[in-house]
């Protein structure tokens, strides 16, 4: 047998066992190395995803033993970025990373990982590939950061923060380390613009009451009513919000990872007209026999989508809490037309019933700003999917629904076996951000996914941190991630100052809670 034939037969074996030695010419790269066939493991999992061209460096840890590490990041155009490290933490220089990504929009981003083993031999692993999306993601992400449980709302770290996605800078918008501020939540922006923003603040301090901070055309003011889950009309002239009675309860004996749960005992929707400074409601939004929650305007502002379920109890006491019917509460997705010029509401119509959704309960609808898509999540029962392991993301093509009259929903492939929730859109409708428990258990983290024009949603990446090990010991949970096009310009001191000032927009809330408020303390439920 000829040498050539032997080599031909053996070459796959040689390649697989890594006996093939390459010699390459590059000043910064290992000169000699062997190829190994197994995939290198890195954490976070930045592989086979689509990433924003303006994202901060995706620093990562190589989960392989080695004496030295070398990573070459390259694409179709421009100079590769190289990182040499004696530790498995790979910290990518920001400037060259940004340049490379910007020059290669729509191209593959390749990572060649070399590891020097204990025998001083360099090993080259199969290339890790991601794709750089053509479109940017909004530059800032706003989220609420807190301990997984906040029963007592002690000082910090509960707060609303904004993170620059193009680097690692995070600043506080408001937090509960200020006197009189107990809880902050439900931040909402109009078309991803922080110059139109709502943010709820709760207080139990004497002399203060719950309120909503509003930025409208850059002016910061306080409304004398606490808004719940809110949605701005795309015109910015009004915002719909929920009024809720949402006591927590706890699963004492189930084997679920998440021990907490919340029930929507009573809810309705109201809306705030910005110019008139009044709060109103409509029968379609506040039926006493129904629970109404999670409002979301359509991209064109002609429809208000929300979740709605029959209220299965009339009155609730601590002795009857949680009501035995609570697992039968399944929300439908409904919508109602709205004429902004006439301030007139149309007929209520069911978009997707729980029955049509396989008996699941629908929550958190979010329409894309271009009006094409409606993203929602569904879970086993109830209104709060974050605390249900089985909560998944689904999508409805609204354009197709208008054409066919059928609101078909599909489960997204990016779901994990843990809870996915709190989804929202970028201003260009090409990115979504959502909270997931897939990697860090009860510590919810934000994930970014690309959505192409056909509605396909790609494998997400977790919000990158400067230290790739950051989440491994981060005891805080991130929820309600919302993308915005520029930073909120008010400081947390200014926000707190306005909340604590006596000046406020006085409003009358046209709905009173029919259900007695229950405390948030340890209400146990056997399961």
């Amino acid at each position, binding site marked *: 047998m000829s040498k050539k034939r032997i080599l031909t037969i053996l070459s796959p074996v040689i390649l697989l066992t890594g006996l093939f030695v390459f010699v390459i010419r590059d000043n910064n790269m290992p000169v000699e190395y062997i190829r190994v066939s197994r995939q290198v493991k890195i954490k976070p999992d930045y592989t086979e995803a689509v990433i924003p061209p303006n994202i901060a460096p995706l620093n990562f840890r190589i989960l392989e033993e080695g004496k030295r590490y070398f990573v070459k990041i390259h694409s179709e155009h421009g100079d590769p970025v190289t990182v040499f490290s004696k530790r498995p933490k790979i910290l990518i220089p920001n400037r060259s990373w940004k340049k490379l990504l910007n020059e290669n929009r729509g191209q593959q981003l390749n990572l060649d990982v070399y590891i020097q083993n204990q025998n001083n031999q360099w090993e080259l692993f199969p290339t890790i590939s991601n794709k750089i999306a053509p479109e940017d993601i909004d530059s800032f992400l706003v989220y609420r950061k807190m*301990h*997984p*449980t*906040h*029963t*007592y709302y*002690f000082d910090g770290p509960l707060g609303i923060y904004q993170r620059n996605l193009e680097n690692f800078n995070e600043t506080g918008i408001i937090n509960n380390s200020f006197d009189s501020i107990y809880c902050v939540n439900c931040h909402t922006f109009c078309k991803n613009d922080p110059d139109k923003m709502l943010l709820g603040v709760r207080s139990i301090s004497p002399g203060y009451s719950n309120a909503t901070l509003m930025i409208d055309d850059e002016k910061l003011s306080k409304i004398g009513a606490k808004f719940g889950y809110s949605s701005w009309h795309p015109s910015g002239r009004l915002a719909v919000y929920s009024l809720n009675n949402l006591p927590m309860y*706890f*699963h*004492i*004996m*189930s*084997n*679920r*990872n998440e*021990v*907490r749960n919340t029930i929507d005992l009573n809810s309705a929707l109201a809306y705030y007209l910005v110019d008139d400074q009044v709060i109103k409601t409509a029968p379609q939004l506040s039926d006493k026999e129904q629970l109404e929650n999670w409002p979301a305007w359509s991209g064109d502002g002609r429809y208000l989508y929300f979740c709605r379920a029959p209220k299965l109890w009339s009155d609730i006491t601590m002795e009857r809490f949680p009501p035995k019917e609570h697992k039968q509460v399944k929300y439908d997705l409904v919508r109602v037309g709205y004429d902004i010029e006439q301030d007139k509401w149309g007929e209520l119509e069911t978009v997707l019933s729980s029955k049509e959704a396989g008996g699941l309960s629908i929550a958190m609808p979010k329409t894309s700003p271009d009006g094409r898509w409606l993203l929602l999540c569904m879970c086993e029962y109830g209104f709060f999917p974050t605390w249900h392991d089985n909560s998944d993301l689904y999508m409805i093509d609204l354009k197709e629904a208008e054409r066919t009259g059928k609101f078909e929903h599909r489960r997204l492939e990016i779901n994990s076996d*843990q809870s996915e929730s709190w989804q929202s859109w970028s201003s260009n409708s090409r990115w979504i951000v959502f909270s997931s*428990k*897939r*990697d*860090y*258990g*009860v*510590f919810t983290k934000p994930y970014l996914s690309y959505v192409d024009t056909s509605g396909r949603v790609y494998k997400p990446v977790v919000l990158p941190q400067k230290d790739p*090990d950051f*989440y*491994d*010991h*981060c*005891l805080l949970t991130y929820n309600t991630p919302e993308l915005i096009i520029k930073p909120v310009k008010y400081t947390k001191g200014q926000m707190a100052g306005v909340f604590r000032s006596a000046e406020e927009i006085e409003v009358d809330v046209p709905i009173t809670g029919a259900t007695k408020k229950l405390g948030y303390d*340890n209400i*146990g439920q*056997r*399961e």
Partner: protein
Amino acid sequence: MDVLLLSSKLLGDPESSGAAGGHWKRFGTCLDLGFLNSAQHSLMDSLEMYGPRPLLLKNLALIHMAKGDLNSARVYLGSLSKTLFHDEWAKGYLEKLESDPSLDNDIEVRRLRNIMFNKDSDFNADKIEDIFANSRQNHASFEYMMSSYLLLEDLEGILNNIRLLKDFDYAEIPRLYEEAILLYMFQAKKSVYLYGYKVSEATHQRFNDYMTILTRYKRDRRAAQSELARGFSDSYLYFYMYGSLEIIK
């Protein structure tokens, strides 16, 4: 206090018995009784109140490992691995999670899994007897149940369950139970069957000494209290008679 000392130290030093209470201490009882979710919730509340104390992180990690929620456990262990005195413990478990994610061979995790209630359990958890009836292998549940009988002065409850001491490998009857038994015999004026166990000579002697003092005061409880408190404040007889954990200094 270690729950397994309940039978001997329940009526002793009030400081060590946890009479002063403390929010975070609630998790220990829940954990002992197998209510891992409730323990988890108490610990998470404590984390909010006191910050990431190693004791809290350690127990949260154990609970999540016992429940099979390894992702949450890793985060608690990751945080703990950055502390000065508990890093080795945390790193040990992090390594173990890599080599044996089932943790079937870990003694502590196995113990928690053995006693934990899960969704298959369906009973009224308001009564300690019901909790014990549903977790008969849980030594802590047994001790809590017996302690509740002591505190409720249910002497028959103690007596009826002496037969279970064998299930938990007691070599002898704990002192407080012995005193309760003698008290029962004294009141009922009859002997009882103790399933192979017997009340120790020392306890008999102490019981007699107690009665001697009481007789000297002509059974006047109030008059005898000061002297009895000096020698018997940790006894069940004293608790039964004066109904308080208070110690007269």
